[in-house]
């Protein structure tokens, strides 16, 4: 997902009898559905897992601006351009809500940026694919934001208060993102043969990377089990992927498109689709930094940060001068 394969430091899950009294009281609060707030005691593993997950989520929102930003100057109409600008601005906002939520756990913003810029922190694999045509902007809204919604809706019930509250704000805005994407594609499939082919091509390229967003099956993962015990994670990767496929296939059919999966069939018994396995080797390569656009994305983030340094410093200097001026005028009175 936007946070993929988050580690928890847990070699295995502790039983109640192995927990010290504080850990047990903490787990009982979680089980009772209580929210954990910033200043309260929490196990170190819980805190570190949350920092990893929230910051990875934040980095994904920030890096996620880049593939779409690529088309702002080339949007086909002024209205589409205004919509895309608003959408990309939302992504920046989502990143900022999430960084703030992570900071309540005692990590500084600069430390988080540094982890992203140094390549130490991960962000979602999906943003390392290129946006080659305008149809890709439609496909991202429809598929990528659609997959994000699948994951983010349950995260609104996450046990950590600031993260859950950030998710509420984000989910309110995501629906606009998905619908504007689908709207782009609806328009294009009613257009020329070439435009329709462009939409099919976009689906062909984005389908599998979208399914990979949920991460590999985590049914056997101790990290996932621990995250679920802490109610940082609510559903397994396979569960969410299934839900996404079931929701998305009829939407593709409405557009008159073919989902690029020969194994895709409706399974009456389970009331859902059977579908093929994504290429997990590709996924691990992209996560490891070898996707088509990893270097470009990180390069763009670093350049934006470095090129903005003089401006950030200028504003700091201005604020300091203004404070000193005020202090002098108060002293003179």
């Amino acid at each position: 997902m936007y946070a993929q394969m988050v580690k928890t430091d847990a070699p295995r899950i502790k039983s109640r009898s192995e927990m010290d009294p504080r850990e047990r009281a903490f787990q009982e609060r979680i089980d009772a559905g209580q929210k954990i707030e910033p200043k309260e005691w929490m196990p170190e593993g819980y805190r570190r897992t949350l920092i990893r997950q929230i910051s990875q989520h934040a980095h994904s929102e920030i890096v996620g601006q880049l593939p779409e930003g690529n088309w702002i100057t080339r949007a086909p109409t002024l209205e589409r351009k205004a919509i895309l600008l608003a959408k990309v601005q939302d992504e920046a906002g989502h990143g900022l809500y999430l960084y703030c939520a992570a900071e309540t756990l005692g990590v500084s913003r600069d430390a988080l940026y540094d982890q992203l810029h140094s390549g130490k922190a991960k962000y979602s694999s999906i943003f390392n694919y290129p946006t080659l045509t305008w149809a890709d902007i439609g496909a991202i809204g429809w598929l990528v934001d659609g997959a994000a919604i699948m994951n983010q809706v349950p995260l609104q019930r996450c046990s950590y208060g600031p993260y859950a509250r950030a998710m509420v704000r984000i989910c309110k805005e995501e629906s606009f993102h998905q619908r504007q994407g689908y709207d782009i594609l609806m328009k294009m499939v009613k257009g020329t043969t070439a435009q329709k082919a462009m939409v099919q091509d976009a689906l062909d390229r984005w389908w599998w990377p979208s399914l990979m967003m949920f991460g590999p099956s985590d049914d056997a993962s101790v990290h996932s089990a621990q995250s679920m015990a802490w109610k940082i994670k609510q559903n397994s990767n396979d569960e969410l992927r299934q839900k996404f496929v079931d929701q998305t296939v009829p939407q593709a059919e409405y557009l008159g498109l073919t989902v690029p999966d020969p194994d895709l069939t409706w399974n009456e018994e389970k009331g859902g689709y059977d579908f093929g396995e994504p290429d997990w080797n590709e996924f691990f390569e992209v996560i490891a930094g070898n996707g088509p656009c990893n270097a470009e994305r990180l390069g763009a983030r670093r350049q934006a940060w470095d090129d903005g340094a003089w401006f950030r410093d200028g504003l700091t200097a201005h604020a300091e001068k203004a404070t000193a001026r005020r202090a002098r005028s108060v002293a003179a009175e």
Partner: protein
Amino acid sequence: MSSEWPLWEVFIRGQHGLNHRHVGSLHAPDAEMAINNARDVYVRRNEGVSIWVVRSIDIAASSPSEKGPLFEPSNAKVYRHPTFFDIPDEVGHM
């Protein structure tokens, strides 16, 4: 140079007549920029009519361990609630 901008807490009045409500935080070099940034980050969809920003370090907060001394005294004083008193039906609405 390049030190991190201070953290500000953002409060929005959603509608006329309501209290300002905490919505989140952001970094900014000064109060004026904090309000500008709050506009871009927290009110992109007509969420309010007024913005307050306060430096996070200027907020004093109770700690979770003080929960008892702060909130228990009122739990013991049920007579502070109007439902504590039985008023006969004949008396009518009170």
